[in-house]
């Protein structure tokens, strides 16, 4: 406990990073408010059945479930931590003397949620990421899911998205998804990894290369064994390049890819399937970081220093908003960020763990980062923007007609990115297709209204919001 006693640290996000940050900050002497929009703790990695559906052996679906149990108990029981679930931070004001968070507490998307304003001494952003799916013909059909959706439904609902499922995309995340699908009783017809042998394949052959991140190595090795047991083929250098069906998925086309991810003509084969789970990486949830004014890397993650401090005084960041490194990295970064936000020196062991995990982050990107050849599997009528149904052909046509390559203008002339998801699904894709990345800038990720808010709830906000007293000692049950 070497922090500034009584400092109020607000942590947004209760995934691995946020949980670790909340505990570290509290241990260092801060008073902590931990907020998450979800009604439970754990974030994406430890998504689990809700309290209303208790299960006897939840742990069979999870890795490091003990860590979760321990962390969540620690924050719930710590007298200096207030846990607020169902608390959606919907905007962040950057004031001259710090930040102010605006929160609505209640059921998701409800009208009449309770407003809450917080003006923390220190803020830790641990808002995580969502998975990213590159468009392909037919990806808008019901039955095509992001890999994260298949995972979330398996872990959080015990719902199987289908009986014959194809898993495709890029990165080690496909492995736990296939594993969870198997545990829903589904037949996993194959796991198709876009990157060619040499990436994950090499890790799988030579697990000692992963030895620096022992938790991860064991976890991945476990998945590989499981896939082998179920005779699930794992194929590198392949992709689902189209989904077919009348009103829902009935089959997919799988093709071999070259090193640039362009489909190799003549290698297509059609496989009957009733569901597809596809993800090609992750997109950080940057809304609050952008609103706070945090500097971003060229690949658009939050820039942090050795203590996980962002470029904005008083704001720290941890977990997948700072780079995609998996739960181990998120935990380690959270522990560093929480201590630093509390004004303490992070434990050297936490710093070392963080440094090790970062190596893994860099290698995932190097091995599985999106390669430009994927554009070749698009057709003119392929939907790019799922909300507004703007096609690839229309996007190009509008960009040509207006001689514009700038996302703001093309968005408003083609409508791509104007719908309810506010370009969360298509924004990066549209930027890449237009060649209009905004290096270092927020690009499509500037969303001052973080999630939709009922106009009546906006109207009911108090004029000068009364800030609640720094949190008392009881934690809300979640």
């Amino acid at each position: 406990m070497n922090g500034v006693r009584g400092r109020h640290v607000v942590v947004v996000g209760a995934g691995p990073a946020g949980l670790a940050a909340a505990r570290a900050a509290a241990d260092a002497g801060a008073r902590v408010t931990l907020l998450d929009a979800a009604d439970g703790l754990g974030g994406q990695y430890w998504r689990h059945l809700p309290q209303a559906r208790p299960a006897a052996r939840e742990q069979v679906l999870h890795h490091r479930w003990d860590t979760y149990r321990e962390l969540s108990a620690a924050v719930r029981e710590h007298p200096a931590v207030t846990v607020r679930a169902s608390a959606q931070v919907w905007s962040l004001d950057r004031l001259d003397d710090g930040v102010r968070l605006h929160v609505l507490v209640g059921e998701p998307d409800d009208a009449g949620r309770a407003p809450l304003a917080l003006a923390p001494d220190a803020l830790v952003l641990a808002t995580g990421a969502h998975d990213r799916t590159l468009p392909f013909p037919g990806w808008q059909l019901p039955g095509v899911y992001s890999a994260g959706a298949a995972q979330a439904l398996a872990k959080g609902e015990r719902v199987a998205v289908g009986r014959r499922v194809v898993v495709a995309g890029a990165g080690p995340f496909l492995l736990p998804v296939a594993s969870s699908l198997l545990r829903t009783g589904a037949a996993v017809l194959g796991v198709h990894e876009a990157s060619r042998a040499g990436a994950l394949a090499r890790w799988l052959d030579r697990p000692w290369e992963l030895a620096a991140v022992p938790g991860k190595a064991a976890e991945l090795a476990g998945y590989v064994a499981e896939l082998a047991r179920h005779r699930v083929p794992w194929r590198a250098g392949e992709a689902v390049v189209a989904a077919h069906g009348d009103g829902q998925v009935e089959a997919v086309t799988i093709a071999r890819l070259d090193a640039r991810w362009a489909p190799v003509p003549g290698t297509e084969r059609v496989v009957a399937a009733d569901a597809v789970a596809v993800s090609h990486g992750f997109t950080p949830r940057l809304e609050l970081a952008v609103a706070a004014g945090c500097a971003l890397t060229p690949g658009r993650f939050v820039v942090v220093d050795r203590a996980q401090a962002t470029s904005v005084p008083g704001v720290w960041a941890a977990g997948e908003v700072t780079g995609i490194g998996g739960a181990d990295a998120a935990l380690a970064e959270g522990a560093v960020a929480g201590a630093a936000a509390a004004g303490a020196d992070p434990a050297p062991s936490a710093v070392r763990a963080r440094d090790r995990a970062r190596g893994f982050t860099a290698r995932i990107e190097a091995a599985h980062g999106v390669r430009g050849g994927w554009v070749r599997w698009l057709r003119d009528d392929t939907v790019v923007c799922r909300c507004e149904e703007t096609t690839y052909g229309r996007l190009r046509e509008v960009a040509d007609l207006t001689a514009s390559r700038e996302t703001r203008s093309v968005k408003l002339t083609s409508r791509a990115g104007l719908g309810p998801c506010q370009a969360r699904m298509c924004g990066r894709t549209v930027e890449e297709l237009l060649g209009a990345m905004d290096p270092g800038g927020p690009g499509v990720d500037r969303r001052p209204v973080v999630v939709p808010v009922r106009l009546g709830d906006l109207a009911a906000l108090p004029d000068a919001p009364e800030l609640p007293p720094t949190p008392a000692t009881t934690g809300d049950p979640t």
Partner: protein
Amino acid sequence: MSTGVSGGAAADVVVVGAGIVGAACARALARAGTRVTVLDRGAAASATSAHGEGNLLVSDKGPGPELDLALVSLRRWTVLAGELADELGPRFPSVEHEPKGGLVVVASEPGLAGLRELAAGQRAAGVEAVEVTGEQARELEPDLAPGVLGGVHYPQDAQVQPVVATEALLASARRAGAVVRTGVEVTGGLRGADGRLVGVTTSAGDLAAGAVVVAAGPWSGEVARRLGAWVPVRPRRGTVLVTTPMSQRVHHKVYDGDYFAATQSAGAELQTSAVVESTRGGTVLIGSSREQVGFDDRPRAEVLAHMARRAVAVFPFLAQTNVMRSYLGFRPYMPDHLPVIGADPELPGLWFATGHEGAGVGLAPATGDLVAAALLGADPAVDPRPYAADRPTLSALRPDVSDAQAAQVTCASGTTEKAHEGVRP
């Protein structure tokens, strides 16, 4: 001393700014046979013109020169929308010109009296302004708040989609020979031996021109300074809320009578009103706030709350709708509430088309015509004197700039003659 013209061939006219005003000027000039180059430091149609709304209003303007210009411009838009559609073809995105009419409502007797007086003056100036009872207002807009006492219906009010409109004007200008160069920042002026402005220096080299038209929106003051001149344009921030798409329930541009007071006041403190309108995409736009905070682009929840209250007071059903986005922009604000359209009184070769505050989309076509008429010596459609840069309300504010700015200016005598021939009558 730089005389090189590395930025490209000399132009008759350089337009600084590819927003809607610069686009309208470029189109009018190019169609009149002038060689036009439009320069923008950013992308086209991406600054103020992409961060506002597309209302073409007469309802919010009291009798006077701004209203006169608005009436002319409104008629121009009707013709222009058709011309652009014909010229650019069916694949070009629609400018979404919709003459849907405006409805100004009030909930109090004094409010109604004020509105009545305004409408009488507007009628005298040629505006169609039809007083409606509360009941009639609800026939026009069934979802209006029960407290609405009455209002005035303005059938002439219309709207366009401002980004498409800007891109369409630029595309049309290009077809008439204009060159649009984005990512090129104007950094200073080129001066002839006689002191005349004969071009601009840019981040991509010098560019000679017979005339320079500053249409740089809220940055026009800064551009003028770089050229060695002065114009008192300041940013006035505005925020817009956008709902998720829904079936259409708002049919006109509907706003409370207080909007008028906000546009006419010079106060720096937060002012909000609620102009509520639906778009073709199914969203409802709610705008807007007025704040003088310089170019500060940090959003504030308090502003959104103010606007939401106004909107819900007019349309209670909106309380249930979701706001999915907010954005903010900087209106080019003039201290005397009139745009500057015309020659700089002190620097020959320099022209302004700026300072349209919250009406630049509406006023763009008439502005382009006025600029073209003035530069080419044609007859203007409206009397240009009220918008002149040497009008008394501006002259009174004018500082002595001549010597302070000399550093920005490059002498370009080598290009002077050629540039002088530039503008053909």
